[in-house]
């Protein structure tokens, strides 16, 4: 059974069709790159997969749970239990330290556990920075805290929105190496990116254009096409 199955998913805002007839399947342990120009519907698709928005039509099944018609409350529960989010702008709570930012995710999920949060920070190489506020951390460090937070509740699916978009080359490399490690460990990752080199690390790439999947090819072909264009 696939981890994620989208069938004929559309999203319509008034007269604007943000997504049209999206069919997509993501297997467990797969790394999928999602590419496309601005306004192509990437964010809308991520919001729907991340249980933050409901599609206008179509069906979505995540880990065997069909959440096409679930209530807002159940959508929150699904998001909390099954999704880990990594953002381009990190979105750490500014008045909480690194470890507290991880504990907030635990707090909403089940029970805050400082020991476990510290271990998660150690895993991303930030144990020494655990008591620092986000403003005292570099961009790369903030992104690593964000990744640790996404992983703290053992999600089924990691959604990463341009995770290297706000990082310099060195930090971007560090973060990507970490994603590679997660992939090797069997995590399922869907990553939005504009960078073909980042997409090349994924097993599969899809390109969205005008709310439709324009390309559904092997990553090497897609990435090569992107590089050429």
């Amino acid at each position: 059974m696939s981890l994620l199955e989208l069938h004929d998913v559309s999203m319509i805002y008034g007269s604007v069709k943000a997504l049209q007839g999206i069919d997509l399947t993501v297997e467990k342990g797969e790394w999928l790159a999602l590419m496309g120009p601005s306004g192509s519907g990437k964010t809308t698709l991520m919001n729907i997969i991340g249980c933050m928005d409901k599609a206008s039509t179509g069906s979505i099944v995540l880990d065997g749970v069909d959440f096409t018609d679930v209530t807002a409350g159940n959508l929150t529960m699904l998001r909390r239990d099954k999704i880990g989010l990594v953002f381009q702008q990190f979105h750490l709570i500014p008045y909480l330290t690194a470890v507290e930012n991880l504990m907030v995710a635990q707090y909403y999920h089940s029970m805050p556990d400082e020991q476990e949060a510290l271990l998660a920070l150690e895993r991303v190489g930030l144990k020494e920075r655990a008591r620092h506020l986000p403003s005292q951390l570099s961009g790369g460090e903030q992104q690593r805290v964000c990744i640790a937070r996404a992983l703290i509740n053992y999600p089924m699916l990691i959604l990463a929105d341009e995770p290297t978009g706000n990082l310099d080359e060195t930090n971007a490399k560090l973060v990507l190496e970490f994603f590679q490690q997660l992939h090797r460990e069997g995590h399922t990752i869907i990553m939005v990116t504009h960078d073909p080199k980042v997409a090349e690390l994924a097993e599969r790439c899809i390109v969205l254009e005008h709310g439709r999947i324009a390309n559904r090819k092997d990553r090497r072909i897609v990435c090569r096409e992107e590089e050429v264009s």
Partner: protein
Amino acid sequence: MTKMTKYSMYTKMIWNALLRRRSRMLIALLAVAIGATVVSGLVTIYYDVPRQMGREFRSYGANLLLTPAGDQQVMMQNLVANATALLPSDKLIGIAPYLYDRIKLNEQPFLVAGTSFQAVKKVSPYWQIRGEWPADQSEDIVIGAEVAERLEIEPGQQVTLAVAGSEAEKKVKVAGILRTGGSEENFIFLDLTLLQQMLKKEGVISIAQVSITANETELNTLTQQIGEKVPGMEPRLVKQVTQSEQTVLGKLQALVYLVTIVVLLLTLICVATTMMAVVTERRKEIGLKKALGAENRSIIFEFLGEGLALGALGGLLGTVLGFFFAQAVSVNVFGRMISFQPLIALLALVVSIAVTGLACLVPVKIATEVEPAIVLRGE
């Protein structure tokens, strides 16, 4: 470093949100504290004003008269002691007995009043004496300014007193000349016992003036009790004094009440505006929390928690400052210290928390409407 409870994490989030975002929260805290200061101060004054003003009003003279019942012109002095037993001693300022009659001073007839000068000092502190007050039980007298002017008498001068129809005369010293601006200036005042002896009316008085700190209702109750329990005596309220006292107090209290309401409303608006700004600038944080799985209930608890903590802190600060504010007003206006009222402090604290909670309702409602999707839209 073990598992912490959800409650301790909640507390940590609330305190960190307040302490690490000082500049914004200080404005809200200041608004609550100023509101609580004024409210606590004004309520203390509201509570204390009748007590303070009551004492002030007592300087305008008696507010209760004890008179002989029916058509009687005089009553026995011991009835006053019976009536006094019914009056609350902590509120009683003084009781001045009077025996009125006519007497000759230097062979001219005048109105005379026998009284206790010590008691008069308490009941009628507005009496102005040129010269000095006679010592208690002494044979020195006080004469009204009108009498003194007519006979050209100065303090320290010897005069002759005589009762009409009697040959006996008594030489006494004028200790002081009395000015009140009222009918007292036509009287001669001497010690009650001395006058009773001269008139051969031992143990008899015409009236007793009572000064007591009580409002109109309390005075009516006391009047009724004395009327029932002391036969031969008819107590009467000095309506002018009592009613004007009530009117002034009522107006003063209404003013304080009005100002308190206005201050509460202003605090409400100020806190609501600040909390609204807090919610607006934290939309992304709210969206993030929702994206992490926070339910609306959690968001409501967190923002209400922050608001109520602000209310409690501001209320506590304001209550303390309010007491000093009320103390300063009391000392400067009434010249008296006030005592700390724990109930008022508790009330100010509860009102601060309630007002802040109320002010948070709309901002909190707006916070729950933030969608989690905004964290990905990059708005």
